[in-house]
């Protein structure tokens, strides 16, 4: 239908784009991760595994990586906890208000990430909305310190930011469940609760997996929320990468950590897709 020349011409720009802005940078990062920095602060092109060894043996790196995963896991858990019932309600019980409520879930995505992160800062700070309120009603005498600059603040903010991302695939999966399956289940004597566990939940699992993957991967790589709200105890692995590429000027170590995260995320995506395929019905 289309000539070879035409096909080549239209596929060239995206291929060039992917090559120069994705493949090339990854290749460079890959190379950097085996190089090192000399005492005179220059990059030495000597190939070795020193950076990877450092990542495994220096506590702060692997501990921060583990803590980041722990934060991301909690964000995933709470995002699912919020978005699953919301998607279920919207898809099955919202009736005519469905579209309006759906928009309410989407609207926060139009607001800048920074604005939303700063909003939590004003809410959680020692002079913030929440602490002022707690002291006003005499629940506490002093501002609660753990609210801001803590892993708690990071988990809270990231949950707020990534819940719509978890919600969307779950909602889409539920919208695709034929309603006559629910009727068939009731018809066969299943109560609403049995219908939920035997029909609705199994059929929404692919959406839950996709939503969980979104929430986990996006929050694992986040660095703004920990930067703004995390404090020293709420630092995440991306903050370390940022500082290694910046002030610390250790690009090789930064590249090694980045590549580890990349491998982690890609394998996660791979497994979640396998699982989704296994659960989805064609």
């Amino acid at each position, binding site marked *: 239908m289309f000539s070879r020349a035409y096909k080549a011409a239209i596929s060239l720009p995206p291929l060039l784009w992917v090559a120069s802005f994705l493949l090339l940078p990854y290749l460079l990062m890959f190379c950097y991760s085996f190089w090192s920095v000399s005492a005179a602060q220059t990059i030495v092109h000597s190939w070795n595994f020193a950076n990877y060894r450092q990542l495994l043996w220096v506590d702060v790196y692997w501990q921060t990586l583990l803590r980041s995963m722990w934060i991301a896991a909690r964000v995933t858990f709470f995002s699912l906890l919020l978005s699953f019932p919301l998607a279920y309600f919207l898809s099955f019980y919202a009736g005519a208000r469905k579209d309006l409520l759906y928009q309410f879930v989407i609207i926060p995505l139009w607001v800048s990430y920074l604005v939303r992160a700063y909003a939590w800062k004003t809410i959680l700070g020692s002079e913030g909305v929440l602490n002022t309120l707690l002291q006003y009603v005499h629940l506490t005498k002093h501002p609660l310190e753990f609210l801001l600059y803590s892993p708690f603040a990071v988990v809270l903010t990231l949950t707020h930011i990534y819940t719509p991302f978890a919600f969307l695939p779950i909602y889409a999966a539920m919208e695709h469940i034929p309603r*006559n399956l629910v009727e*068939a289940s*009731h018809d066969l004597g299943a109560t609403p609760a049995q219908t939920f566990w035997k029909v609705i939940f199994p059929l929404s699992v692919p959406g839950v997996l996709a939503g969980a993957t979104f929430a986990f991967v996006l929050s694992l790589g986040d660095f703004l929320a920990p930067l703004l709200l995390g404090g020293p105890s709420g630092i995440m692995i991306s903050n370390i990468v940022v500082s290694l590429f910046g002030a610390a000027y250790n690009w090789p170590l930064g590249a090694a950590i980045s590549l580890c995260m990349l491998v982690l995320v890609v394998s996660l995506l791979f497994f979640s897709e396998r699982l989704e395929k296994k659960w989805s*019905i064609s």
Partner: protein
Amino acid sequence: MSSTTQILMTSATGRATGTLLSIRNVAKQFGKNVVLRDISLKVAEGEFLTILGESGSGKTTLLRIIAGFENASAGEVWMGEERLDSQPPYRRRVNTVFQSYALFPHLTVQQNVAYGLRVARKPEPEIAARVSEALDKVKMSAHAKSKPSEISGGQQQRVALARALVNRPRLLLLDEPLSALDANLRRQMQVELKSLQREVGISFIFVTHDQEEAMVMSDRIALLRSGELEQVATPREIYGRPATAYAAQFIGHTNLLKCEIRAGLVRCGSLAWPANLPDGVALFSLRPENIRVAAPDAALAGRVCAPGKVLQQAFQGATELLRVECKNGLVLVVRTPAGAGALDNVELEFSPDDAVLVRESPERI
């Protein structure tokens, strides 16, 4: 215009049996849209009742009210001594075969059939025995481990049937279950479904828009039109003695004759026959096969005769369909056994008993 329905309580064997389901003055409206009006209907034990109607006649809504997926706006549904319409669908001893089968796509054929027994927490050995018995009955044992997406439409149909029957409901509802199948498979399934119903002895309420299907399968047909029952009768009776013009036209072909009755004589164009009816205007239904082409001047006593000219002659295998113009421009459709050749001027004759007085079917919104 409430439908006074004559209720025949005979089962397939002609033996009078008890009422299983009674629908009492059920009405349904969606907003301002009236879908069902004052429906009263009884279904006998072991009966195969077909709700026949065009799309939009309300037949599926009536079925959904019995199953419990819709609430009636008025009226009651009773099963024996038990009021059904106040109970949720999962408490009714009624099972449905859906138009699109609605098999659970994440479960195997076997698990689909076992679903009703599992949620009822029957012991596993009993479930296994009943499921394999049900799959045997619909000849689907070989596909027990398949997913619904791996089997054909006709096979899915059988699984849906097994899934419903395995629960031993007192009443099975079937919502146009054959409409997705091709013509050959459809005819085969009609026969199978009917013999299965005889075998299990469960009452079936079968919804269809196909009048032929209704005739083949049913003990009785309930003809629904724009949310009201036109007639409830056996296939033979509804065909031979249609109550309304709509019933006469919807089930089979007919000639609708608008006649004038005066002094015990019915007149329609050049046709006339005696009838013991009050004066006025009336509609008569005369089936094409009840009109015969007679030899000229061979008029029989007590039969109505009229000469006519053949306008059209369509050969249909065993029979031929003729359009014959009689005097005064009256055109009759006549079905005769396939004859020797072309016909031109013919003498038509029919028995006055075959001209059935029918009520007019006024337009409804």
